């Protein structure tokens, strides 16, 4: 897999001399679907359901883009990528957009040649241990064996945190989240560390979730968001405003349930603009004017997607916390759509 994507980037960089300047939107329209990079399976964010259909919070972003472009959320093909493969897959053009709870960092934005289009989940790195160990704080982890996924910011934060607190650890590094969980459950290591959302997701699929606790410390900022390649600004804009439209829709209380009535008889100019009954926001993006209507109608607003995949009542049971709207105590804040 790794080799395949390396070869892909090598051949793409080698032979597709003009690909870098081609418009992704035209390519996507021509082939009739979006190729969306997701995780190899992380409950709540992107995982195939019992019917083999991909579901989750990141998957919803791909579906929203498909709805914005095609008016149909199903025109997406998913490429499961490991943390290690994801960047080469995007660089090489194997996928059009990467929605794979990826942390927005300087070097990824600048050095790897990507463009993060926003943050769809504000996260932080945490630790999960077995209750039986009796550990109450991450500061008690000196000398522990830590299981971690390779190619992540997690590996870097882990080293920073232990150095800063003068503690030692042994790391055991695996390629996929499932391998890490397996090793943690087999007690090959004491601690499982990744973004807290990931810890909750993994805990939700463990047989006895009650035997494990997520320690209170959050040791890093992990703004997770979708990203595209540098250099195609139109495509970047579509991705960025797809995300913003979902957030804005929640703030304006537009949901998949009431979007039709609102479209027919709202007097609110903000809502009219976003639903395309006034202005030409969609055309400015190179899409139909009903782009945001299609997103909300087919996928829902940010809050609906969150509640469906991650929120209270789901197996993950994550509170909105930082990911609530700015006027509800969170830091979710979409620039105005006008």
């Amino acid at each position, binding site marked *: 897999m*790794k080799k395949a994507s*390396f070869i892909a*980037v*090598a051949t*793409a*960089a*080698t*032979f*597709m*001399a003009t690909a*870098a*300047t081609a418009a992704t939107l035209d390519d996507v329209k021509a082939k009739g679907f979006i190729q969306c990079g997701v995780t190899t399976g992380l409950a709540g964010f992107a995982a195939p359901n019992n019917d083999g259909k991909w579901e989750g919070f990141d998957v919803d972003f791909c579906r929203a883009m498909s709805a914005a472009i095609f008016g149909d959320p199903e025109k997406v093909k998913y490429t499961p990528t490991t*943390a*290690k493969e994801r*960047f*080469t897959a995007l*660089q090489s053009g194997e996928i059009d957009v990467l929605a794979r709870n990826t942390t927005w960092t300087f*070097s*990824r934005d600048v*050095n*790897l*040649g990507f463009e993060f289009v926003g943050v769809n989940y504000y996260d932080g790195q945490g630790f999960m241990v077995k209750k039986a*160990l009796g550990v109450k704080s991450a500061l*008690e*982890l*000196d*000398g*522990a*064996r830590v299981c971690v996924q*390779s*190619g*992540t910011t997690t*590996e*870097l934060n*882990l*080293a*920073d945190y*232990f*150095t800063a607190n003068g503690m030692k*650890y*042994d*790391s*055991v*590094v*695996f*390629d996929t989240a499932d*391998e890490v969980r*397996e*090793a943690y459950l*087999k*007690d*090959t290591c*004491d601690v499982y560390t990744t973004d807290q959302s990931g810890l909750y997701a993994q805990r939700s699929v463990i047989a006895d979730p009650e035997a494990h606790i997520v320690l209170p410390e959050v040791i890093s900022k992990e703004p997770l968001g979708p990203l595209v*390649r*540098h*250099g195609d600004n139109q495509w970047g804009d579509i991705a960025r405003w797809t995300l913003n439209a979902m957030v804005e829709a929640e703030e304006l209380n537009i949901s998949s349930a009431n979007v039709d009535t609102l479209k027919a008889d709202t007097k609110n100019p903000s809502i009219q603009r976003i639903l395309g009954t006034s202005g030409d926001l969609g055309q400015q993006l190179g899409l139909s004017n009903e782009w945001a209507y299609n997103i909300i109608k087919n996928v829902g607003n940010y809050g609906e997607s969150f509640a469906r995949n991650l929120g209270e009542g789901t197996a993950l049971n994550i509170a909105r916390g930082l990911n609530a709207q700015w006027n509800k105590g969170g830091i979710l804040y979409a620039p105005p759509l006008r």
Partner: protein
Amino acid sequence: MTAEAADLEVAKINKFRDPRIRAIFYQILVIVLIVGFVAYVGHNTAVNLEKRGIASGFNFLSQPAGFGIGIVLLMDFDSQTSTHLDVLLIGIINTLAVSISGIFLATIIGFIFGVLRLSKNWVVNKIAAVYIEVIRNIPLLVQLMFWYFAVLSVLPLVGDSMSIGNNFFVNNRGVNFPAMIPSTGFWLIPVALLVAIVASVLVRNWAHKRQDLTGQIFPVFWVCLGLIIVLPVIASLIMGNPFTMSYPEFGRFSITGGWSLEPEFLALLLGLSIYTGAFIAEIVRSGINAVSHGQTEAAHSLGIRPGLTTRLVILPQALRVIVPPLTSQYLNLTKNSSLATAIGYADITALFAGTSLNQTGQAIECIMITMLFYLSISLLISMFMNWYNKRIALVER
């Protein structure tokens, strides 16, 4: 047409029809095409990397790595100050560590089972046959997973470690045993060991000559073993035991102190050597079968005992058949060690072509360096084995 013109014509035709000239022409053409293709690929890659804003070059090697490594041998590694070059070196050391110990173990397993496969004892013979046929026909990756997830992970937890004596523990975090920590004056012990080894070689040569001259047999093995054990012990006593022992102790999470073999290393070592050992066993069996049965009969009729016959008559001749295919098994083992990445062992592929590649994003450089490493190490092994093959080759007098 004058005679001169006709000659000229013939000369012209001859030039094109001359196979040597034609051969040179085509060779030059092929070289130009290959060089042109490589240059085109290289140039195009560089241009496209730049166009996509992807960093290139080897400067990243001097950047701090920033991540931790589970298994570090012979070097100090600090996640904040050590660079990606250090990561590369640690990866190389870890790969070499598992490859060399794997080659050693696989050779022993292979020779034992290769000889057992020829045993006239039905049970022994069949046990060897089952081992070889089962192991050779299951993919190595699956076997590594088996050793790691199905065997080593289900050993007792640290708290209920199996112990042998007070200082040797086996649990699902590996094997722990006492460590020898050198203090001042320790240098004499390795020096004494080296002297003992040199002396052993000299004794062996001398004994060989004496046997040729007088026919008397000297107990070379026991004398050499004695030298190798006694000399370092004397050295240690002279310097007043210049080391301290560190014993494994139960810490909060796992056993601290002493030396430990991590389960990732053990799984890889076992997987690789048992898998390659099965192939080596077949090579050894075919090598022994290749020595004509008349040799055995001749040795027996001279009154040489069966054990000595195998050691002095059969094996030296069999080795000539065994060594060339053995070389390719050693190469396979070294290259297969890159499967380490599946079970979390920090070899060069997992560390440098994995984590470093991902943190820096410089796929082409990292993969190139990794390929270059495997290529050089494989060529080195081939060179050594070719030298050894020449040494044991039949010398015609």
